[in-house]
C-alpha cells in the first residue's frame, strides 16, 4: 500500500534541492550558519512539486487547487527574474522631523523645545547639511551612505488630509479618492497578473493589505511562510491529505456564488493552494524553521521575521510580485514621543538593513525594491504633552541596490516651508513616486493605474 504524504514528498524534494545547491558557494553566508535551506529551494523543486501534486480528486473547476498549482508554477517559470516591490507601512504617521532632524534650521529648537535632537547626536545627512539622522536610524543612514536609499524628505500631497484613515487610504489606493476600492498595487496586478497565481500579491501581516486589493486577480495573505498549515485533532494519514483537498474544493464549488458566500469560497480555494505552495517552508514538528537566513535579523519581533521569510520565499523562486506589510512600532506619537520612538525606529531600520543584506547574500538584490511610507508627517511644532499632532508632509524611503540613491524633493524648511497650519509642505507627491515605480521598475503604463498620472512629476527612482 502506497502512502504518500505531501509533507514527506516535499521534505524529500526540498532536501534534494538543498543537496543540489549546496556546492554552489553562496555569497556572504555568516559563519556557523547551517545549510541555508531556503536558498536551496530552487524553482525546479517547486515545479517538481507541481508535477507530483497537481491532482484534484474531487473533480475539476476553474478554481480547483490543481489549476492554481499550475498557475503558480507557470508564473514562476515564465518570469523567474520578474521585479518585486515590497511596500512597508509605518502606521500612525511617523514624525519625519525626528528621523531626519532639521538641526540646521534656525527655527527647529524653538518649535521642538523638548523633542529636539541633542547637539551633535546622530550623523550628518550628506545630501542636505541642515538635516541629521536620528542615532536610532544608523543602519538606514549607512545604507544611504552606500547609495542604496533614496530619501523623500517631505512627501505627501496638496491639502493633506490629517485623518489617519483617509490619508492612509489615499496612499493605499494611489489617488485622493475616498471611494476607490482597489489598491494601487492591486490594480497593477489586475493588469499584468494572472488569474491563477495568488502569490503575485502577498500580504505579510496575516490579513489582506488594502494596497494589494484587486478587482480580479487572486492575492494572498499570510503571517509568514512557516506556519501556514491546516490540521485537525485526530485527522491523519491519507484522510488528512484529502481533508486539505476537500476544504479547497468546497471553497471552489462556491467561488462563483454571489456575495459573501462566493467570497468565502474563493478564500478557501486560495488557502488550499497557498498551503501547498508553502509546504517546503513549514516549521518541523519541533518548531524549527525549514529555512535559515544568511544574515542576522533583529530578534523577537514579527517584522524582521516576516522579512526573513520573504527573502527565503523569493530565493525559492515563488512567483511573488508585490508584497505589503507593516513595520512594528506605534508611530502615532501624541504623547511622550521619546519613550518608544527610538526603539521603534531602530527595530525598523535594522530590520530593513538586514533584509537588504539578506537579498544581497542570496543574489537577489537586483530584483527587489522596498518602499517605506507613512500616511503623513507630524506637525512641526510639538504639542503640550511632549508629543506631536498630525501633520502633512512626511517621509518615505526607497531602498535597494537598484534604487537611484538620490534625494527626491528637498526639505522645505521651517519658515516658508510650513503651511498655514504649521505643517510641512510636500516637495514630492506620492502619486508621482508610484507612477515612477510603475514605469521605471515594472515597465508598465502608469496612466492605466494611477488616475491623472500624466500630471505628476516623475522623479528618477531606479538605476
Amino acid at each position: 500500500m502506497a502512502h504518500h504524504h505531501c509533507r514527506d514528498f516535499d521534505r524529500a524534494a526540498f532536501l534534494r534541492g538543498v543537496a543540489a545547491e549546496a556546492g554552489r558557494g553562496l555569497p556572504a553566508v555568516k559563519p556557523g550558519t547551517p545549510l541555508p535551506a531556503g536558498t536551496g529551494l530552487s524553482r525546479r523543486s517547486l515545479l517538481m512539486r507541481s508535477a507530483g501534486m497537481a491532482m484534484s480528486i474531487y473533480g475539476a473547476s476553474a478554481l480547483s487547487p490543481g489549476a492554481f498549482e499550475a498557475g503558480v508554477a507557470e508564473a514562476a517559470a515564465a518570469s523567474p527574474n520578474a521585479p518585486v516591490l515590497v511596500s512597508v507601512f509605518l502606521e500612525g504617521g511617523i514624525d519625519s522631523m525626528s528621523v531626519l532632524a532639521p538641526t540646521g534650521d534656525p527655527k527647529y529648537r524653538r518649535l521642538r523645545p523638548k523633542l529636539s535632537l541633542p547637539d551633535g547626536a546622530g550623523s550628518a545627512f550628506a545630501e542636505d547639511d541642515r538635516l541629521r539622522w536620528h542615532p536610532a536610524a544608523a543602519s538606514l543612514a549607512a545604507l544611504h551612505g552606500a547609495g542604496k536609499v533614496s530619501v523623500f524628505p517631505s512627501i505627501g500631497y496638496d491639502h493633506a488630509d490629517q485623518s489617519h484613515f483617509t490619508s492612509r487610504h489615499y496612499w493605499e489606493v494611489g489617488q485622493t479618492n475616498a471611494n476607490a476600492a482597489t489598491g494601487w498595487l492591486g490594480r497593477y496586478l489586475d493588469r499584468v497578473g494572472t488569474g491563477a497565481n495568488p502569490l503575485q500579491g502577498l500580504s505579510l501581516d496575516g490579513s489582506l493589505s488594502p494596497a494589494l486589493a484587486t478587482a480580479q486577480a487572486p492575492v494572498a495573505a499570510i503571517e509568514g511562510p512557516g506556519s501556514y498549515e491546516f490540521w485537525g485533532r485526530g485527522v491523519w494519514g491519507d484522510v488528512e491529505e484529502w481533508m486539505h483537498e476537500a476544504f479547497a474544493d468546497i471553497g471552489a464549488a462556491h467561488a462563483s456564488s454571489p456575495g459573501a458566500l462566493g467570497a468565502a469560497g474563493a478564500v478557501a480555494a486560495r488557502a488550499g493552494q497557498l498551503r501547498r505552495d508553502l509546504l517546503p517552508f513549514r516549521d518541523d514538528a519541533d518548531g524549527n524553521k525549514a529555512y535559515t537566513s544568511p544574515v542576522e535579523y533583529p530578534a523577537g519581533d514579527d517584522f524582521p521575521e516576516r522579512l526573513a521569510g520573504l527573502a527565503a520565499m523569493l530565493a525559492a523562486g515563488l512567483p511573488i510580485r508585490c508584497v505589503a506589510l507593516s513595520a512594528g512600532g506605534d508611530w502615532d506619537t501624541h504623547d511622550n514621543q521619546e519613550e518608544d520612538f527610538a526603539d521603534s525606529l531602530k527595530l525598523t531600520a535594522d530590520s530593513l538593513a538586514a533584509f537588504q543584506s539578506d537579498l544581497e547574500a542570496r543574489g537577489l538584490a537586483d530584483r527587489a525594491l522596498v518602499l517605506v511610507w507613512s500616511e503623513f508627517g507630524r506637525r512641526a511644532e510639538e504639542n503640550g504633552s511632549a508629543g506631536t499632532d498630525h501633520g502633512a508632509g512626511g517621509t518615505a524611503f526607497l531602498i535597494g541596490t537598484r534604487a537611484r540613491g538620490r534625494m527626491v524633493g528637498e526639505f522645505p524648511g521651517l519658515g516658508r516651508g510650513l503651511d498655514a497650519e504649521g505643517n510641512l509642505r510636500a516637495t514630492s507627491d506620492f502619486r508621482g513616486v508610484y507612477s515612477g515605480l510603475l514605469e521605471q521598475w515594472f515597465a508598465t503604463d502608469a496612466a492605466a493605474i494611477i488616475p491623472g498620472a500624466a500630471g505628476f512629476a516623475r522623479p528618477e527612482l531606479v538605476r
Partner: protein
Amino acid sequence: MAVPTYSGSFGPAEAERLLWRAGFGPKQGEIEALAAKGLAGAVSSLTNPPREKLTGPQPRPDGRSLNPAVTSGHNALWWLDRMVRTNQPLVERMTLVWHDWFATRGVGPGKRRMPLEQNYMLRRHALGNFRALALEVTRDPAMLLFLSGVHNRMGKPNENYGRELMELFTLGAGNGYSERDVREQARALTGYTFTRVTSRGHEGFRYDKRRHDPGRKRILGKTGRFDARDAVDLAVRHPAHGPFFVTKLWSAFIPTPPEPGTLGELVSLYRSRRYAVKPVVEAILKHPDLYQGPRMVKPPAVYAAGLIRALGDGITQRSWSGADYGGDSGQRLFDPPNVSGWDESSWLDTGTFQGRWKVARLIASEYSLSPGENRDYPANEDGDTAVNRALAFWGSPTLTRETRRTLIEFADACARDANVEYLRTAYRVSRQNALRMLIATAPESHTS
C-alpha cells in the same frame, strides 16, 4: 412614509438568519422557538430581553474562575463566555458594535481593568441613547488615556480625541467639519485628568475646571464657551450625524447599503426619538433587506461564539487558556487594530481563513474521536451517514448542495482507501474528525 417592513414568511430560515445577525447564532431549539413568535414577536424578544442571566457551564479553562481584569487573555475569554451564555444576545451584540465603534485599547498598568469597566458601560447603553453614550465615552477613563484626553488641557491642546469624535464616532471623515473645527473642538474637550497611577493603573479620574479652557470657541458654525457636553451635542445635532449614524449602524446588520428612502426614514426616526438607538435597531431588524438580501460574513467573534453555542458547550476546555483564538482570525476582543475598529469589509482572506480554522479546531478538539478509544465506531459507516453524524455534532446547520456533495465525495474517497482491515475503523474515525472541521469551515459557516 414609514421604514419598510419584511412581509414574507418568517420561518426557520429567517429565524436562523436573525439569530446570527442580531446575536451569536442559535443554541439547540432556538430557531424553532424564535420562528414561532413571528417577525414582530421575534424582534421584540431580542430588543426587550428578560433580565440578564448567564446559563450553561461556567468558564474555567484553568480549573479556576477567570480573572479578566488581571490575567492576560482572560478579558477576551470573559467576553466570549458572555456571548455564549447570555440570554440577551442582542444586548451583547450591540456591546460588540459599540466596542468596534468607539474602539479603545488599554494603556498602562490598568490596561486590562479599564477597558473591562468601559465594556460594562457600553453594555448599559447597548440599546440606549447615542448622545448619552457618546458623552460617557468622552469621559470614560480608558478612552481618556487611549486618545490623550488627559493630556488635553488649557493652553496645551491635544487634538487626538476631538478629531476622532467627529471623524469616526459622529460625523464621518471630512463630513461637514474643518481642521479649524478639530482644533476648536479640542479646546472644548479640555479639563479631564487623573489623580495618581498605582499598580492597578490610573485612578481618580475627574474633571478639573482649572485645566479646562473656558474661552469662546467656534465649532461647526456655532460660537460659545463650549465644554465636553456641548462638543458632543454639537456633533450629534450636526446635519451629517443622522445619516452617518444610521449608515454605520445598518452596516453592522445588513451588508448592502440602505436605499435612500429607507435611509431618510431611519434618520427621521432616529431624530424624532431624540437619538434613541433601540427604535432604529428594531426597524433595521424588521427590514426586508435583512431577510431577502445576500449573506453576510460573520465577524470572527460571532463565528467563535456561535460554534460553541451550537455545541451547547462553554469556555471550559484547558486549551482555551493562553490560546490566541482571536488574533489569527482577525478579531481579538479588547484589542482592536486601531481607533477606527475592525474593517468589516475584509474579514476573510487566506490569513484569517487559517485563523478561523484554528478556532474551529480548538472548539472541536475536546470531542475528537480516536481509533484507540472508539474501537466500536461502525466499520461499515457509509459516506452519507458519516456526513449526517458530523452535521448533528454542530447542531445540524444548513449546508448548500455543493458542500454536501463534496463532503460525501470526500467521505467515500476515505472509505475506498481504507482497504486493509486495520484501517477500516481507524479511517472512519479520522474521517469523522475531518468532516467536523470541513463543516465548521465551509463557506456557509462563515456567513449568515
